[in-house]
């Protein structure tokens, strides 16, 4: 899209850079579109002379043959490289500094994850590879599934959903399928007023009406109100725990009891699992079905480096409804890999310890020549062989191509194994400690609407700054001038003018102190010089964008000027 960017200040000076024939300021201050930089005849490639018979495209393609060439940009290779490299420097990333977006868990994406995900055998694995040759990848799925079940305390899981909202959708599909199997799909789903907007959207898409639950003074669920609202038409309650206020529902087991007494299910939005891992397990406090966000809690990237991932875990009674295919392990079916790449039984019976030592890996010389087989070794402590099961008559069906976003599973598993149980528990403790450190350091300057103890994030309101005309959005923009990504603005909706801050465990005390200092400085500016904050950011390539015009009259594509 074309934007009218502010010309930078250096250019406004007399005798600006263009009189020198060379720009004085860094060229990344502005960047034209590739279409605008195009010049006829430029190429980023040169093909060798044609050494096969030429083909007449128009006779092959008939009507589909295009008479006028496509208006593609014409650029040299280095111009393309520079274009994208310059654009990349405009981005803000967790690798550049703190990214305190509440509810998003923007934690560091460890390099070991990336290393493992790029190992050739994993990165190049093809989803159509025969199961017998894909046992390595399947073992990764299986181990990740078992780790996530251990962490959540649930019984069964699917890794298919592509991200959090997709996980919600899958989880509520399971809920509906189960109610249908009981003879009545029911009509409504309860959603607290502090919920992520995706919760009511999910319920509506799966065909339920949404009923709101008002939060009580502590930001939690009012048990008596809930008991009045739950009835025989209630399919489920969708609850985020800790809530979007960063508050733990300490009566969650009673909430579960109220629902279960009426035959309704408890769905947990696992977006805030970063406050629970290694401490409590949703499966132990009454949750029936939940999703996880691997791109939040388990350190896989949010976009850029890869897609999201939203596994759904459930209790045993929901397992028959899981999306197909389901990964299953055939007991004692360990096989031997033949030269042709097939698997054959070499010992169908378990050994005395129940675990046949059956796998012989090919031993190769450096040039790849096979010189023999290794000693027999267990493929896996569980033995057996993994395969996809499609014959699941009660399944809600497939929700994603293949088995979801495999690259994320590898990264999440690398994170889990690198940290280990104690390490994961410590990340939870550090995430909560960091949020409370920020709360303590800022609560004298920023209004704290809910005094309940904070978990992994803290929510302030702009009430005191608003008295000077400075709103949460202005403070967020000013934060950019201090080198930080803004926190989450105006969410949750139940807090007027919310500032939602989630530092995650990734940040050191030094970085947290810089953030606190920036926030305290902005609070001072809001009193002494509110205009400075209301017109921020000032240090950026472009000044404040017109969000309203962008939403009302978006320019979604570039069009060539009429010639």
């Amino acid at each position, binding site marked *: 899209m074309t934007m009218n960017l502010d010309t930078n200040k250096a250019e406004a000076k007399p005798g600006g850079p263009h009189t020198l024939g060379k720009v004085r300021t860094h060229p990344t201050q502005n960047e034209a579109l590739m279409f605008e930089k195009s010049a006829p005849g430029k190429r980023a490639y040169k093909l060798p002379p044609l050494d096969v018979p030429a083909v007449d495209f128009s006779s092959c393609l008939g009507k589909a043959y295009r008479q006028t060439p496509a208006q593609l940009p014409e650029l040299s290779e280095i111009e393309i490289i520079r274009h994208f490299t310059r654009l990349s420097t405009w981005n803000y990333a967790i690798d550049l500094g703190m990214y305190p977006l509440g509810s998003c868990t923007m934690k560091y994406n460890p390099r070991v994850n990336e290393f493992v995900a790029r190992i050739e055998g994993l990165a190049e694995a093809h989803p159509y590879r025969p199961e017998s040759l894909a046992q390595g990848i399947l073992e990764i799925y299986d181990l990740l599934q078992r780790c996530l079940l251990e962490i959540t305390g649930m019984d069964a899981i699917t890794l298919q959903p592509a991200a959090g909202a997709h996980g919600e959708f899958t989880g509520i599909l399971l809920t509906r399928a189960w109610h249908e199997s009981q003879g009545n799909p029911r009509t409504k789903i309860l959603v607290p007023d502090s919920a992520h*907007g995706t919760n009511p959207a999910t319920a509506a898409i799966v065909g339920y009406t949404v009923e709101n639950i008002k939060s009580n003074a502590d930001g939690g669920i009012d048990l008596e109100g809930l008991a009045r609202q739950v009835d025989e038409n209630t399919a489920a309650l969708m609850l985020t725990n800790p809530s979007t206020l960063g508050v733990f529902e300490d009566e969650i087991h009673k909430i579960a009891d109220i629902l279960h007494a009426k035959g309704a299910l408890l769905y947990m939005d696992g977006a805030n699992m970063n406050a629970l891992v290694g401490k409590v397990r949703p499966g132990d406090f009454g949750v029936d079905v939940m999703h996880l966000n691997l791109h939040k809690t388990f350190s896989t990237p949010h976009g850029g480096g890869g897609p999201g991932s939203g596994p759904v875990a459930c209790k045993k009674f929901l397992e028959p409804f899981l999306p197909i295919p389901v990964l299953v392990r055939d007991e004692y079916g360990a096989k031997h890999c033949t030269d042709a790449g097939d698997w054959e039984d070499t010992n169908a019976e378990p050994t005395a310890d129940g675990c046949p030592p059956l796998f012989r890996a090919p031993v190769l010389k450096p040039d790849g020549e096979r010189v023999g087989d290794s000693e027999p070794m267990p493929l896996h402590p569980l033995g057996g062989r993994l395969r996809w099961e499609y014959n699941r008559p009660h399944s809600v069906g497939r929700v994603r191509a293949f088995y979801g976003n495999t690259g994320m599973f590898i990264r999440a598993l690398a994170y889990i194994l690198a940290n280990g149980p104690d390490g994961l528990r410590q990340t939870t403790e550090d995430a909560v400690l960091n949020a409370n450190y920020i709360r303590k350091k800022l609560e004298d300057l920023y209004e704290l609407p809910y005094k309940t103890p904070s978990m992994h994030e803290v929510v302030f309101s702009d009430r005191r700054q608003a008295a000077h005309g400075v709103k949460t959005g202005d403070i967020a923009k000013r934060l950019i001038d201090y080198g930080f990504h803004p926190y989450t*603005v*105006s*969410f949750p*909706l139940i807090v*007027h003018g919310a500032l939602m801050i989630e530092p995650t465990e990734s940040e050191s005390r030094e970085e947290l102190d810089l953030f606190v200092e920036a926030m305290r400085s902005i609070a001072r500016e809001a009193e002494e010089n509110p205009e400075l904050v209301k017109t921020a950011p000032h240090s950026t390539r472009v000044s404040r964008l017109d*969000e*309203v015009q962008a*939403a*009302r009259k978006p320019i979604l594509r570039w069009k060539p000027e009429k010639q």
Partner: protein
Amino acid sequence: MPYPKDYRYTREHEWISVDGAIGSIGITDYAQSSLGDIVYVDAPKVGDAVTANATFGSVESVKAVSDLFSPVSGKVTAVNEELKTAPDQINQDAHGTWIIKVELSNPAELNNLLDATAYEAFIAEETGS
């Protein structure tokens, strides 16, 4: 911003102004100022049925999408087409900009709504001021 005395209000911040059997429905000034700049209004079609306390559409602002709750039950007789291209009219004049007109099927429902004084007291309580 004064709240017109002849309007009735919901706790979800809609107003209704009744003329004979037809009620015009919009959102309050408090609602528009909390939402901020409105960029899109999703309204039902003429002929659709609306139910008291149930959603009949949504308004989208730069900040959030909010459901619209109908103050009354009835059938939609008109939809404000101007809002398709100029949703900001609601920001400029919330009480003068109707979103839909409804033929009331049960005028007694109006008795469940707040009058201007009660609504002002309600929002004062809601903002804690």
